[in-house]
């Protein structure tokens, strides 16, 4: 009985101290003044750096939330936010069609290609090669931008259908595919060029057929429901600026789009 009382007291003390510690974190990091950006997992590296640079130059905070472009869209619809940066602009097209977007800015071009182990030991160069017997292929499902992009442009191509049917795994984010190739779990996977650059263990085989598979654009959208509209747009403009976010994206291996997108300002942006 004595033990039991001691344990009960210890229990309550530990719980009290832990709750106080958590509450301290909860209130000390009040979100007031920060804009919320939902960002595709494949763009995590340059965006994290850009957010730090933006805070240093303007003093304004941006809170980041990462994931697959599709799953982020679902989270965003349920919980709201200020900015959305999927790895492919088609997600924003759907938001725009429903009047959920107030403006959009293009940041960089992304090309889908084949990630292979360093030195390309399996000699994979084309989409046809992916359906070769004995190869282990990883692809992204349509919750990731690259999965949607490939399905949209190659969905009816028989060579692509063959490759899809021979894939051993379908993953939720492009970085998971790159990791699988880097770890040697699969022989090849389809990834964005800039994502492949982040992994020393993999080589990127470009699919040089623009007619077959056009370049995708990473476009940041300012949401109509944003409560920090002006600040959200300032950050989007910073990313689009060739000396701001543009420089960070270029240094990380992304092909930036230097001029402001033609769509800027068309939905009443200051």
């Amino acid at each position, binding site marked *: 009985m004595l033990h*039991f009382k001691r344990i009960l007291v210890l229990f309550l003390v530990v719980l009290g101290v832990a709750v106080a510690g958590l509450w301290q974190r909860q209130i000390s990091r009040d979100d007031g003044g920060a804009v919320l950006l939902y960002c595709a997992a494949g763009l995590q590296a340059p965006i994290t750096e850009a957010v730090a640079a933006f805070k240093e130059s303007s003093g304004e905070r941006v809170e980041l939330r990462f994931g697959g472009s599709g799953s982020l869209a679902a989270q965003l619809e349920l919980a709201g936010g200020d900015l959305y940066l999927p790895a492919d602009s088609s997600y924003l097209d759907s938001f725009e069609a429903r009047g959920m977007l107030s403006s959009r800015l293009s940041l960089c071009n992304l090309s889908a290609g084949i990630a292979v182990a360093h030195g390309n030991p399996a000699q994979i160069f084309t989409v046809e090669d992916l359906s070769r017997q004995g190869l282990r292929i990883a692809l992204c499902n349509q919750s990731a931008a690259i999965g949607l992009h490939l399905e949209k442009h190659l969905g009816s191509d028989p060579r692509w259908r063959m490759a899809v049917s021979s894939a051993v795994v379908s993953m939720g984010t492009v970085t998971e595919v790159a990791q699988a190739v880097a770890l040697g779990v699969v022989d090849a996977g389809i990834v964005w060029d800039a994502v492949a650059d982040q992994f020393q263990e993999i080589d990127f085989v470009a699919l040089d057929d623009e007619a077959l598979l056009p370049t995708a654009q990473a476009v940041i959208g300012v949401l109509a429901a944003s409560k920090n509209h002006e600040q959200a747009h300032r950050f989007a403009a910073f990313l689009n600026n060739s000396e701001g976010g543009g420089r960070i994206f270029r240094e990380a291996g992304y092909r930036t789009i230097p001029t402001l997108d033609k769509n800027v300002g068309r939905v009443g942006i200051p």
Partner: protein
Amino acid sequence: MPIACLLTCLFLPGVGLMAGGYVCLILGMLLAGLGFVSWQDAVDLFGKPELRSALGLTFLTCTISSLMSILVAVPAAFLLSRGRFRGKSALDTVLDIPVILPPLVVGLSLLILFNHLSLGEKSIDGWLVHVFGEGARVTFSPVAVVVAQFTVCCALAIRVIRSTMDEIPKRQEEVAMSLGCSRGQAFFRVLLPQAWRGLLGAWAIAWARALGEFGPILVFAGVTRGRTEVLSTAIFLEMNLGNLRGAVVISLVLIAIALVVLAGVRWLGRGWEREEVLF
């Protein structure tokens, strides 16, 4: 007869082989992880303030969610173990839902519950912000990590505590009540002191489960570096950055913490057991 003899001779080696194979699988995973990284990788990773913050938040949230689980699980398990009422089976089934649901569904359901279930004019989060200010918002905050962990861990704790209470004979409580104890006194003075080992086990399982929780946290608390990042979600962030070694280091740290907690609880249980025998 010779076949029966052969089966008898092969029984123990067979059992040993199967159990040993599983142990080898677990140890193989650990060794593969250890062989993949170096000590320097760990030093580099935990030199980052974000990772130290994630480590701190992991301890805080796991501790709170596991203790709260025990707090809620004890009365729930008591109801299921000792209660006789209509709808008991339905209640039992409902309490199993968080365990059988896919983790992402738990996260999504919490997201909808706090943001879209309308209570008058506002959602739950809306009311919290309206009454207590922006700091009380649950979604995408450190508190959301606790809520996500608690939702799953509590159901597990209830299972463990209930099976402990089922094993304790009701007779002693009935005797205590016939001698003048109230129902509450019998619960606190007879049942709970006997169930402490089960409570400790339930706490350890809840803590370890909270440590590895990922899906509900990803969806409901989000993965925000330095804010809602715990070790399980830090692995996701490091993998997104292409830092595989970092992700493996964090995985090994998670395993080490879980081992220490489980071994510690086991050691405490034995220590107390010996003490009880002595006195």
